[in-house]
């Protein structure tokens, strides 16, 4: 039995389709990253798994249970980290953890957990006085205090500093190592690449692709070369030199539509040398997850991923999809 199953799930808000016949699953002992641009349907999907909303169509199961109908039976087995908030402003970390621990028959030790997420120093500060990163750490601890078998983490590293991100990543890996299923949503692709066993990319509420980060990075798009260099290179001249189209996909990031043969790569570096341009990085064949993501969501949407300001604006203006978020 999979730990979570999303089976032909559709969610509509009025006439807006947030999730459109989506299917995927994950097992115990596995970290699944749900990736997608803002408004792709990530949070709606996860909230259905958490029992906050009913599917408009299709069904979801968590540990074989219906999160709405079997709510009480399921709750001791899951841990939830909301995208933001969830704690009263006057609450102190140690108290919040102790209260939540009392909801479970066999909880983690609250003090140990405070140490593990690095909040011992602020255990008696109130929530309103914690930094954004500290609030995220406490939310994570609250999600873990019941020893969940399935943990849902919505954007867990949002507004967390570098040390915090590393800590959260290692905690997520430990959870899976101990046998839990961790479902995390993120639009931080480096995050997903480092922490996830499997990735599902969704856009417009539809599944774009699913697989391990390695599979996705190996299998797709071997007919292009991506490189970073100074912004504003003369792509027309470079295209002539390579005999293939070149596009600056975002400032300082270039895509060459050619098979990454040794000869083409040599011509590319030769052209850069002639123009005295340093090469920041070069990806040919195996790509970063981000490259895959950008290309696939571009294909599915006719636009590119957020982070590229121009395309985000175009998408917001063009489709009015923001309404689909909630």
């Amino acid at each position: 039995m999979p730990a979570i199953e999303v089976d032909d799930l559709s969610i509509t808000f009025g006439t807006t389709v947030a999730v459109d016949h989506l299917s995927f699953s994950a097992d115990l002992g596995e970290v699944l990253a749900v990736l997608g641009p803002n408004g792709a349907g990530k949070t709606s999907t996860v909230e259905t798994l958490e029992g906050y909303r009913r599917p408009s169509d299709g069904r979801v199961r968590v540990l074989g249970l219906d999160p709405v109908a079997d709510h009480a039976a399921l709750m001791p087995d899951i841990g939830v980290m909301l995208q933001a908030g969830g704690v009263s402003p006057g609450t102190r970390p140690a108290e919040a953890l102790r209260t939540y621990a009392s909801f479970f028959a066999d909880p983690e030790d609250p003090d140990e957990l405070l140490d593990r997420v690095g909040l011992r120093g602020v255990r008696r500060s109130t929530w309103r006085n914690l930094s954004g990163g500290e609030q995220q750490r406490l939310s994570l601890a609250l999600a873990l205090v019941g020893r969940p078998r399935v943990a849902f983490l919505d954007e867990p590293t949002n507004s967390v500093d570098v040390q915090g991100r590393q800590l959260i990543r290692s905690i997520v890996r430990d959870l899976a190592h101990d046998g839990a299923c961790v479902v995390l949503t993120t639009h931080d692709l480096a995050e997903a690449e480092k922490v996830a066993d499997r990735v599902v990319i969704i856009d417009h509420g539809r599944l774009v692709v699913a697989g391990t980060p390695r599979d996705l990075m190996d299998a797709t798009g071997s007919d292009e070369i991506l490189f970073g260099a100074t912004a504003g290179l003369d792509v027309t001249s470079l295209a002539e030199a390579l005999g293939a189209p070149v596009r600056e996909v975002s400032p300082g990031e270039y895509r060459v539509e050619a098979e990454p043969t040794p000869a083409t790569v040599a011509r590319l570096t030769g052209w850069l040398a002639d123009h005295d341009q340093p090469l920041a990085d070069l990806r040919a064949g195996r790509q970063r997850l981000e490259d895959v993501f950008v290309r696939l969501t571009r294909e599915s949407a006719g636009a590119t991923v957020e982070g590229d300001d121009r395309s985000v604006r175009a998408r917001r203006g063009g489709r009015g999809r923001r309404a689909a978020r909630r």
Partner: protein
Amino acid sequence: MTAIDPDVRNQAASASRIWWAQTRSELLLTLRRGESVLLTFLIPMVVLGFFSTIDVLPYGDGTAVEFLFPGVLALAVMSTAFVSTAIATGFERQMGVLKRLGATPLTRPQLLWAKTASIVIIEALQVVVLVIQGLLLGFHFGGADLGLAFLATALGTIAFAGLGLLMAGALPALTTLAAANGVYLLLLLLSGMLFPVDELPGALQVFSEVLPSGALAEIYRGTLGDAAVTGRAWMVLAAWAVLAPAAAARTFRWE
């Protein structure tokens, strides 16, 4: 962390342990909020002390404290069950606290019972403080019928908490904050808590006779002192105790 056994389901703690943990948390947060302590303890005490010792309101034959003490008890119940509950719950809803609790073994009935227990405990503390103050100011418990006073407190608490949740469950938190304080002031002035209702103009009198706060004050005046209690007061209070929670249950949105 210990490894997870895939074949064993986690269990929730016992219902009583969950309920008490949440009650304790509600109490701590309420007592930590300065404005809530001001509203529930200081304002009733200042009202009772000020108007009992300084003769500015029309109380007819009896001493001021005979009239004021039952009214201030009603005020205390109103401030805790209605205003404090409305404001706290409104912000908890807005900040996702209720939503987050919805994904724990704490059930909604357990949450409501925890909130109820927290209200009752705060009310008990208020009563202790106000009774001491009332006795010091010279209030005499006449033919006190404590059983009926408890019944009225229960009905009043249900009615006011229902109103508070009705507001908190439907309005944005800041609107609830403003509206709850506004209604509090209105009920304080129109309900015969500070001065007899027959001092009000006729049209306002009719209005104030159907308010839960006035009914509660009248019943306290009768059950703790020597005044007469009308059946109308009981009916008004009971009606609010049925209608307000029913309306709240129908309209409450958890996020």
